[in-house]
């Protein structure tokens, strides 16, 4: 009998709005090779799948060959692990239900698994990052949108249809700001990048008080953080308000799920203490008293570029091996 050979590498893929990154990752999370191409060049999903497949083949041939690869894991917005589909993504060029995992598996002949970025990052943090060793924690993504993944007893909770974790579309303000999802007052309309900018614009319109924020045409998050550093009171107030809304929502989340920690990821987290301090104050005020003071606030320490690739590689280990040739 031939001795079974163990494959020690996987491919992690991160599909972002602008760029798609691919990487060969070994068992310990070392990235052996990396490549990328612009996502938006391929508005047709079949073209995209073919280009992605070619890109992966070229990459793995340059780093140890196709036979060393166990599986492929993909991080994609609106990805559903249970079905392997990208479902009704508001931001991606492909509409409706796209069976991305099946399309890629048929082209590449390897097992392919797919998850949304919150799910994938939770796996990444659990395997290689801040959540290592935690059994009950909540991963939060705060960027263009807001998502989360609840890990229960060491396993990500995906829900009946794989849509669990949509904290961004919980109602934070009944009858509040109109959200792209069709509802009103969704949390992400207050805490994501665009939500924070909207709060700033509202504050600017409400009064005539001087503020550095009035000096630019298009407000960005990083500019507002600069304003905070320079002591601009109105900019600081923007983050105070954001923190209050966020802190209340996280307190409710924690009261229901009693996590050991929150792990924060995403571009909004560059606001650091300006956001986290008011968030934590409101959180402690509103959380169920038996767990007040017992929930850790952790920030991801993984590199921004690596976070999703490592998570996608961890996801690749979750699926059964599959080969066209066996």
């Amino acid at each position, binding site marked *: 009998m031939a001795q079974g050979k163990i494959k020690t590498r996987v491919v992690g893929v991160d599909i972002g709005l602008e760029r798609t990154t691919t990487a060969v990752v070994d068992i310990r999370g070392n990235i052996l090779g990396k490549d990328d191409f612009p996502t938006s060049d391929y508005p047709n999903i079949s073209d995209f799948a073919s280009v992605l497949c070619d890109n992966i083949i070229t990459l793995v041939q340059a780093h140890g060959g196709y036979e060393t690869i166990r599986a492929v894991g993909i991080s994609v917005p609106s990805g559903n692990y249970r079905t392997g589909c990208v479902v009704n993504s508001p931001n991606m060029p492909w509409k409706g239900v796209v069976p991305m995992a099946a399309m890629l598996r048929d082209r590449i002949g390897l097992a392919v698994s797919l998850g949304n970025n919150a799910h994938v990052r939770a796996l990444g943090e659990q395997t290689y990052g801040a959540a290592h060793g935690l059994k009950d924690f909540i991963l939060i993504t705060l960027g263009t949108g807001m998502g989360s993944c609840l890990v229960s007893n060491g396993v990500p909770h995906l829900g009946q249809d*794989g849509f669990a974790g949509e904290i961004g579309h*919980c109602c934070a303000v009944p009858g509040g700001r109109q959200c792209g999802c069709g509802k009103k007052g969704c949390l992400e309309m207050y805490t994501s990048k665009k939500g924070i900018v909207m709060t700033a614009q509202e504050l600017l319109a409400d009064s005539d008080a001087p503020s550095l924020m009035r000096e630019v045409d298009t407000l960005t998050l990083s500019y507002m953080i600069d304003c905070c550093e320079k002591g601009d009171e109105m900019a600081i107030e923007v983050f105070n308000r954001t923190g209050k809304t966020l802190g209340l929502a996280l307190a409710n989340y924690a009261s229901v799920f009693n996590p050991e920690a929150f792990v924060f990821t995403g571009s909004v987290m560059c606001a650091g203490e300006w956001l986290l301090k008011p968030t934590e104050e409101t959180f402690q005020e509103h959380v169920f008293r038996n767990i007040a003071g017992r929930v850790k606030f952790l920030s991801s320490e993984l590199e921004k570029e690596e976070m999703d690739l490592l998570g996608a590689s961890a996801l690749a280990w979750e699926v059964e091996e599959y080969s066209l040739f066996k």
Partner: protein
Amino acid sequence: MEDETKSRVVGVDISKELTTYAIVDIRGNIIAENRFVTTDYPDINDFVTKLSESIVMLVEENGGLFSIRSIGVSSPSGNFLTGSVVNSPNLPWKGDIPLAAMLRDRMGLAVGVANDAHVAALGEHTYGSAHGMKDFIVVTLGSGLGSCFFSNGSEHRGFSGFAGEVGHTCVIDHGRRCGCGKEGCLEAYAAAQGIVKTAEELMAESDKPSLMRQVEHLTPRAIAELCQQGDEMAIEVYRRTGYILGIGLANYASIVNPQAIILAGGISHAGHWLTDPVRESFETHVFQNLRGKVKLLVSKLNDRERDVLGASALAWEIPEYSLFK
């Protein structure tokens, strides 16, 4: 020698007024049952003594101690991970009570303790509406509002065993004061006292006639009966309650993506007066991919039976233990 399998457990339901205990077999048949008044024993030591004596008597009359595998206890504020009853606002015993350890030492049998929502969920999963479901939420609506959610076929307990406190999530910033010390908790609107409070507010807001004005001690049940008689203000009470509860459940479901939400407990008997507005508000506020997909069910088990059956299911979850081995 062949090892004997024990096919019976004891389920205990401690509630504010009564403590019910029963012998239950593997299929959920209640072999024998009895109860005593909880409030007669304000000292926890007296209570545990009374409870263990009662159980021993019941067991001796029905097959003997050796037929019993273990004991499951449902108690408000019970924590499964520690076996303690922690800071209960409603029970006479204050602080952190190691109930499981106390009872085990007296009985010589393994004892599991959990809160009523956790136990209700186990009961529904083993013998009720949630049979065969893997991801679902059970919400208990009574004098308090609790919940338990199942992830992948087993209950989510949380890091320190306190998960499920949806009653103490804030629905109205700086709203009504809650017994827990916070403001605007869901429980202050959707549990028994909250519903009565809503009725009082409605009566104070206007001069409109309502049969509720003639009731001396309003209860959620009395209000539901007035709904049946067509009293508009009573219907409005449940409409407002359902609206707020619907938002709370929609937020819960958006995060959990459950197959079903099962409502249990006294308030759920208000029937469609409550569930219609809950469903309407729920569908408005839930994440779009879930719209129309989550079943809203009302428990079909009898309230008292569910807690005893759930406690018996809990008893099967813990490893066997005996003083005599």
